[in-house]
């Protein structure tokens, strides 16, 4: 069964149609890419599906359930994780706390447990911490677990963001330019991590990328978005050779 399905989603910002008639169907375990020039509306598509904005028209289904217009925290807890193009970390909180925070809804101990350090609280905390460290291990950031997040190198901060998104145990993960601002070495590492995460956790991934190499290497199916409209959808090879895509990226004259 399709894991994520978007039917005819359209969104207006005032008089500007940011996304028009957008459709997508993502199968469990699939890696899918969304590319397009700057301002094409890629991040808007993410914001619409994750519930930050409510689409003007259209329907969104996650795992068979309609999520159109639900508040972001509900959608997240139904199994949609996400990272951001520009890092959104909590300065002054440790790496471990970031990942623990993602387990918030799973914490069952209350005030008394927290204040008096009951056995149940300790057991739960231990459990959460073990899982958090496992995830940090997976993304290769476990050595930084107890550091304040702002003290980490940039590439490491992005891994923390990824681990935090994974900690909610998503069925599908939205990555908004996970390699933005990375140097070539960090980029290769990040791609390896995404591949590893995909293999180990078997989740579906929806990826926005600017760098062709990354999308082409990782994704099974790629959509190209231009001015809020999907102009092409297909395998990396099909996309690479699609004249409409080349035009959108390079301009018409080059084609002539």
């Amino acid at each position, binding site marked *: 069964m399709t894991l994520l399905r978007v039917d005819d989603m359209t969104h207006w910002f005032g008089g500007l149609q940011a996304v028009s008639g957008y459709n997508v169907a993502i199968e469990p375990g699939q890696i899918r890419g969304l590319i397009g020039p700057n301002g094409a509306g890629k991040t808007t598509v993410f914001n619409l599906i*994750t*519930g*930050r904005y409510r689409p003007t028209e259209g329907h969104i289904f996650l795992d068979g359930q309609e999520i159109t217009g639900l*508040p*972001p*925290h*509900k959608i*997240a*807890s139904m199994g949609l*994780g*996400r990272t*951001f193009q520009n890092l*959104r*970390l*909590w*300065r*002054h*909180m440790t790496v471990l*706390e970031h990942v*623990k*925070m*993602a387990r*918030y*809804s799973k*914490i069952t101990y*209350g*005030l008394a447990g*927290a*204040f008096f350090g009951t056995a149940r609280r300790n057991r739960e905390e231990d459990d959460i911490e073990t899982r958090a460290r496992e995830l940090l291990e997976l993304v290769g950031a476990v050595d930084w677990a107890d550091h304040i997040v702002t003290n980490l190198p940039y590439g490491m901060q992005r891994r923390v963001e990824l681990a*935090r*998104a994974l900690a*909610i145990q998503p069925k599908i993960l939205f990555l908004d330019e996970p390699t933005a601002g990375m140097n070539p070495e960090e980029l290769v590492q990040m791609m390896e991590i995404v591949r590893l995460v995909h293999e180990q956790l078997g989740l579906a991934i929806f990826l926005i990328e600017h760098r062709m190499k990354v999308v082409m290497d990782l994704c099974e199916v790629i959509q190209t978005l231009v001015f809020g409209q999907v102009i092409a959808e297909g395998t990396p090879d099909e996309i690479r050779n699609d004249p409409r895509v080349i035009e959108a990226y390079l301009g018409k004259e080059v084609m002539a």
Partner: protein
Amino acid sequence: MAFFMQQVVNALQRGSFYALIALGYSMVYGVLMLFNFAHGDVFMVGAYIGFFVSSGLLALSAVGFLSLPTGVTLALVLVLTLIISMLLNSVVGMLVERIGYRPLRGAPRASAAITGLMIGIILETSNLALLGAQRRSFPDLIPGETIHVLGVNITPKKIVIVAVSLLLMFGLHLFVRRTKWGMAMRAMAYDYVVVPLMGVSINTIALLTFGLGSALAAAAGILYGVAYPVLDPYMGVLFGWKAFVAAIVGGRGSVLGAGLAGFLLGFIEIFVAAFLPSTMRDLIAFSIILVILTFRPHGFFGEPYSAQLRL
């Protein structure tokens, strides 16, 4: 020396009120990036709730509902008054958030400030309309002889007030540091956009923050009533502004800063009044604050252009 120590004791008591109220300002700012200008009046409402709860409990014990030794009864009444009033006032705070601020989320900052001022006026005037202009005298819940220690006069009131305040502040510290709600509050202070993605509702955390701040304000109101047993509908105005100033001096969003600056303001006020004519107290105290802010515009623990909740 004894005179000096006496002032320290007085300052600790006065600082307790400011600190408890300032915490509410600072927490809300840290989490929602807005100052709840109705907070001083929420403190007033808390004091009134405390007045009615304690009077009610005392009336119950007077008709023989509880037959315990007077001291025990009073202690029990104090504890119950604190608990019940803090709970009730946290509901008041949550209503203020739900009705006054939630519809304005995403609106310009000035709208929230104006709303806060209006809610404050509504609370003051509805108190006046419902309860009349006469002042209420808070029952004396902590009687007892003054103790003389090395020439310093200490009343049981002062000990209890400072102790309860410190206890509540420590409780808040534990809450922010150790509970999942506290963790969410801290996360919201740094970047609220991601918080829903963790499956946490921003509205829930906002309500909780207002509830906590208002509960502390109720405690401040009750302790204030115990120390200065005269309540009037406008008691929260000047007191609230002073606590607000303390929150700024402590650093917007800093819980530790708000607590410390509350005590600092208490010390400045008491010591100015101890050595200079008391009519000059506020003038000089706030001049000192002005000088501090000139050199530390973001307060002791504040960061430029950003909110934070730190303990």
